[in-house]
């Protein structure tokens, strides 16, 4: 018996898709559309740790102002009352600041997890949460590889909270609040393609300043929040072991096999039922 990776599901999946669509399921659409997502590039070499982004985020979303500040060795976390935090890391080149928030994945785990599409990847790029749809199951939290969505455990009418890239401001033609107010120009807003080109340019023009990697270009299938760093990313608290394929791809095999089971099982069961029927009066006891 040989078990190849996913071969079982894949076989079922292809059969299922064939049954349902009459042809093989098309592969994911290539990157054309994906690259035009709006995105934010964060350059940690330019960040001065002033927390202006935190304050302007709190103001834009009516949240309490932050009361603590980045401190070396302390990992502050986003929670239901703050959607972005700036942390300070002690690295091989000294202190480095890092802003964290939702990564706005191209193919987000939270969105694939959500059974009501309350978590939704807009065609513009931001991943947003919609109050009128969410049932508070918290499956998005279980699935997000960056632990981004937070839940208001102490409210009878709880919300899921996370950065939405100021989607409502973008709709009015404004910049996300953090980008607009950053005094160090550490944040840049644009299309994902432009920003990746810009990040590449910065790396190639100043190879001694930057670590040669854009975090978010390929991680988790690519994200709309892109990071530049002066040091390897594990030094500033990033999970560099994160898979390159998107997280929803982990469940695709299973989901594709569903239609196949739905078609094949009943036929098979009926077949067995029919085959065993004749013997029934004679053999009382099968065991």
């Amino acid at each position: 018996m040989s078990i190849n990776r996913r071969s079982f599901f894949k076989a079922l999946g292809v059969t299922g898709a064939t049954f349902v669509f009459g042809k093989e399921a098309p592969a994911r659409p290539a990157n054309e559309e994906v690259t035009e997502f709006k995105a934010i590039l964060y350059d940690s070499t330019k960040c001065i740790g002033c927390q202006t982004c935190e304050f302007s985020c709190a103001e834009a979303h009516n949240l309490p102002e932050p009361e603590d500040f980045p401190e070396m060795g302390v990992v502050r976390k986003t929670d239901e009352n703050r959607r972005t935090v700036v942390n300070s890391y002690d690295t091989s080149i000294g202190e480095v600041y890092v802003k964290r928030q939702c990564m706005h994945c191209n193919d987000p785990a939270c969105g694939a997890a959500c059974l009501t599409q309350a978590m939704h990847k807009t065609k513009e790029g931001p991943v947003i949460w919609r109050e009128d749809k969410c049932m508070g199951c918290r499956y998005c939290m279980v699935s997000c590889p960056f632990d981004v969505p937070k839940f208001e455990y102490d409210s009878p009418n709880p919300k899921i909270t996370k950065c939405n890239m100021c989607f409502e401001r973008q709709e009015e033609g404004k910049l996300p609040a953090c980008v607009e107010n950053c005094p160090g120009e550490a944040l840049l807003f644009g299309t994902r393609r432009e920003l990746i080109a810009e990040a590449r340019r910065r790396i190639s023009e100043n190879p001694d300043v930057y670590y040669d990697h854009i975090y978010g270009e390929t991680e988790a299938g690519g994200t709309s929040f892109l990071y530049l760093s002066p040091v390897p990313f594990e030094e500033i608290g990033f999970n560099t072991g994160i898979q390159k394929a998107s997280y929803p791809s982990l469940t695709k095999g299973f989901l594709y096999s569903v239609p196949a089971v739905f078609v094949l099982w009943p036929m098979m069961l009926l077949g067995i039922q029919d085959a065993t029927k004749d013997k029934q009066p004679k053999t009382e006891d099968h065991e």
Partner: protein
Amino acid sequence: MNNTISVPLSEEKKSRWKFFLGELKPKGKMFTWFNVISIPIMLLGLGLIVIRFWKGIGSITNLTQEVPWGLWIGFDVVTGVAFAGGAYVVTFMVYILNMKSYRSIVRVTVLNGFLAYVFYAGALLLDLGRPWNVINPIIGNGFGTSSVLFLVAWHFLLYMLAELIEFSPAIAEWLGAKRACKILSGMTLAAVIFGITLSTLHQSGLGALYLMAKEKIHTLWYSEFIPILFFVSSIFAGLSMVIFEGSITHKVFSDQISEKNHEQHHKILRGLSKVCTGALFAYFFLQVLVFVHSKNWDYLSTPMGYWYLTEMLGFVLLPMLLFYYSYRNNNITLIKVASVITMLGVIVNRLNVTVIGFRWDAAVHYVPSWMEIVVTMAVIFTEIWIFRWVINRLPVLRESPSWAKNMH
């Protein structure tokens, strides 16, 4: 509906009411040890549920931002539904493989399965932060078709319906509705086939829920084969539950069971333990393959590794050997022991994936609060109450009325 229901004693409305009211009254003694323990816990649980809806989920649970699913999902839903798997296995044996000798346990198993879904999947509502939106994926305010949870939720719903249809002839017999009974009995096979298909998918779907939590679950318990493992283990989880539940109901409700069925029950237990041996063997074999495939040797000598070995050897291999030995030697007591160990093993396995191994490396571990445990127990006790109520009234263990005998 009304014209198909004919009440045994009289056709008048009044007597129908009397019949219902009479059936609502508790039967049997009030002061049994079970009642004395369960009533306070159910009341306490009810109080806690009120607090939970008033002050939020955080007021009675220990859930955190990192561990958003705890005991209520990991035990009530994921484990409870595995135990309810007996219904699809037994209906498969009786209606698809035509193993007539298992007929006598079909109704009680289906009833058990149905109630388990109602209560344990129902416990999901307690865990939903915004339960008033639970109808959204049904009415189409967002069809999250790429979501495994969407699939599982729909399947729960449809499967409850299938089980209700499978069980409905018993209800019709209770009400003395002859025509309805005939129609409903005719729907059984379709419901069974539909139900088995749904079960295959959502038993594995419960495992598939955790596929995206790749980095969060200890590698010894995470693999892309979780869905298959969950499905195979639901077979022996369900059957051990049937064995366990059967040995209890045969004691408690012995007055309802005919002499013939009592005798047959031992034969049934032996047959079931044979199936359990096979399923446990397949499961163990799969686990070994998955383990070898993922090259996790280094983890074995860590505390989590010892725990993993305990699960595999003590709760899979051991009960498999016990089942094998006991059906060869016709040892009914040992069959019951094996079923209890198997059930413990299923609990251990499901909790390892959903709670113990989930964020096992987090700084602050999630440990369920006593209140979460009380609510869980309250849910289980309520289910048993309803189960007892039904058994005492409907022809589940007891023979069907004579008019219904030749209908199915």
